[in-house]
């Protein structure tokens, strides 16, 4: 790294003896495992950032004969592609991470929900899973993994929508509460974790919470796999320590002409150059599931916003009013302003609408459409109007 303030880490892709870690973990109590995860400060790596140890604790505390572990590999957020790479490079670590979670919460079945766009991974994964399940059987550890495929629906990355889909229904998010840890897949307590989270959990179970805690900041412990794309000479996947400023990041990955960075994918925030310095990447600043899209000055922010909105308009599940119609109104609205069919002041109406979508939508999808919308309108208003 040419930039000293950015630290590359290698926890995720490092090849490890996963079976040794498994043996080690199986000899510990579920309390111990969970305490370590809580202590490490690990938060969900899918984007929402819920404390992983707490999630496991909730699931473990549920009194139920049947519990499930789900690995959320429905990586659909535009700009994110790290889970695909993790599953390709270190599938055993993911599987072992699921088994660790199974041990911690007391589940005997684990599922990987893989998005259909990654179907080409299936033959390899099936093979790895067969081997892994056999190993578990030999070890007399009551846990097995199976795969369920998605069929092309972004919203299925939302945990309850994912479960609906696994149960054979339309992938429409459920009302919460109840949360999956008490009523998840088939109504049973379920811990659903992102691919990357499970690998981190595995590494924490292996190395202890201390090494993880020492990385990152108070709010954002550890490192994170970033998916870097757009106008950058070094697009790709990088595991970086959390807590860097966006300025440091852009210095490292930008093409010298970066005017904006979209942090957290289409549903994240767009940060303009003037705020690079003051923006921290992490839960205390702008959190991300790993997506970092860089835009240089040749890009029209109107086109980018339009792309986002078109994406959401199509990928909303459609059940709740603010999201289904709101997304359409935001898209039609900016188009109308651009064409001069509505006055620039109409953008304020749309921003108020996006506030409503943020607080009144049923799930995270509708709740986050306002993030890119407002951050782009606020930073690049002229580009939208003219």
């Amino acid at each position: 790294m040419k930039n000293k303030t950015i630290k590359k880490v290698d926890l995720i892709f490092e090849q490890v003896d996963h079976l040794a870690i498994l043996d080690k973990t199986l000899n510990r109590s579920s309390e111990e495992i969970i305490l370590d995860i809580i202590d490490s400060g690990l938060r969900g790596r899918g984007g929402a950032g819920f404390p992983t140890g707490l999630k496991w604790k909730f699931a473990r505390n549920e009194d139920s004969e049947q519990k499930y572990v789900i690995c959320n590999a429905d990586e659909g957020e535009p700009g994110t592609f790290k889970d695909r790479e993790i599953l390709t490079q270190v599938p055993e670590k993911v599987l072992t991470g699921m088994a660790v979670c199974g041990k911690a919460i007391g589940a005997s079945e684990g599922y990987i929900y893989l998005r259909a766009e990654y179907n080409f991974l299936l033959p390899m994964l099936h093979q790895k899973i067969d081997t892994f399940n056999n190993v578990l059987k030999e070890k007399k550890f009551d846990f097995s993994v199976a795969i369920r495929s998605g069929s092309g629906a972004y919203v299925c990355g939302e945990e309850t929508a994912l479960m609906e889909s696994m149960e054979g229904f339309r992938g429409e998010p459920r009302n919460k509460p109840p949360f999956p840890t008490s009523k998840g897949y088939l109504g049973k307590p379920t811990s659903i974790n992102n691919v990357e989270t499970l690998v981190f959990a595995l590494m924490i179970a292996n190395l202890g919470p201390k090494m993880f805690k020492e990385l990152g900041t108070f709010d954002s412990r550890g490192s994170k796999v970033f998916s870097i794309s757009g106008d950058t000479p070094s697009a790709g996947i990088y595991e970086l320590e959390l807590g860097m400023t966006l300025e440091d990041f852009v210095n490292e990955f930008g093409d010298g002409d970066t005017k904006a960075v979209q942090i957290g994918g289409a549903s994240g925030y767009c940060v303009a150059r003037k705020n690079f310095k003051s923006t921290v990447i992490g839960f205390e600043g702008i959190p991300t599931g790993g997506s970092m899209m860089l835009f240089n000055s040749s890009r029209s922010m109107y086109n980018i916003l339009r792309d986002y909105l078109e994406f959401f308009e199509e990928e909303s599940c459609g059940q709740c009013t603010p999201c289904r119609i709101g997304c359409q109104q935001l898209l039609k609205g900016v188009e109308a302003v651009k064409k001069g069919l509505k006055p620039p002041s109409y953008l304020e109406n749309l921003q108020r609408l996006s506030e409503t979508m943020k607080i009144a939508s049923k799930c995270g999808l509708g709740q986050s459409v306002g993030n890119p919308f407002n951050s782009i309108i606020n930073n690049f208003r002229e580009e939208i109007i003219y």
Partner: protein
Amino acid sequence: MPTKVLIYIKVHIINPTKNFMTRIEQFVKEQADYYGRRRNSLMPILQAVVQSERYLSEEAMVAVAEELDLSTADVFGTASFYTFLDTVPRGKNIIKVCKTITCHMKGKDEIISTIEDQLKIKLGSTSSDGRFSLLQANCLGWCHKGPVMLVNDEIYTEITPEKTVEVIRDYLKKTK
């Protein structure tokens, strides 16, 4: 006085088991035998049908509904939620060009028009010989290597118009 127990109760079965099954019905039945007939078997079965037939025909959805004891509307409603479970006929090869942000920035429009010219079809349609369908897809998860396209389950990254022509030519050869 002792009560006479129940009178003879009989149910008439007018329409006993079907003895003739079409190819699709047979296929769906095999899938149901394999995956089971509970609701959570629905997706794998639909996926298997699409894998084999490229889309869910009316006949296939009726067969699935019959096997799983669901209503046909329910099967259709579920299938139509998912972009990859087409309910309209598709070609033997389905090309999905990623249209989301970075692939857009890196030139997916050119890729699409290249394919349109090469196969003489419009985006969203199927070639008259039934060999190809050309569609757009939302983010395929290869943003660092855009533009990308999926042909069936095969991914092609960092494609250029020239590379695309070659890829399609290969499929033309493969699919007579």
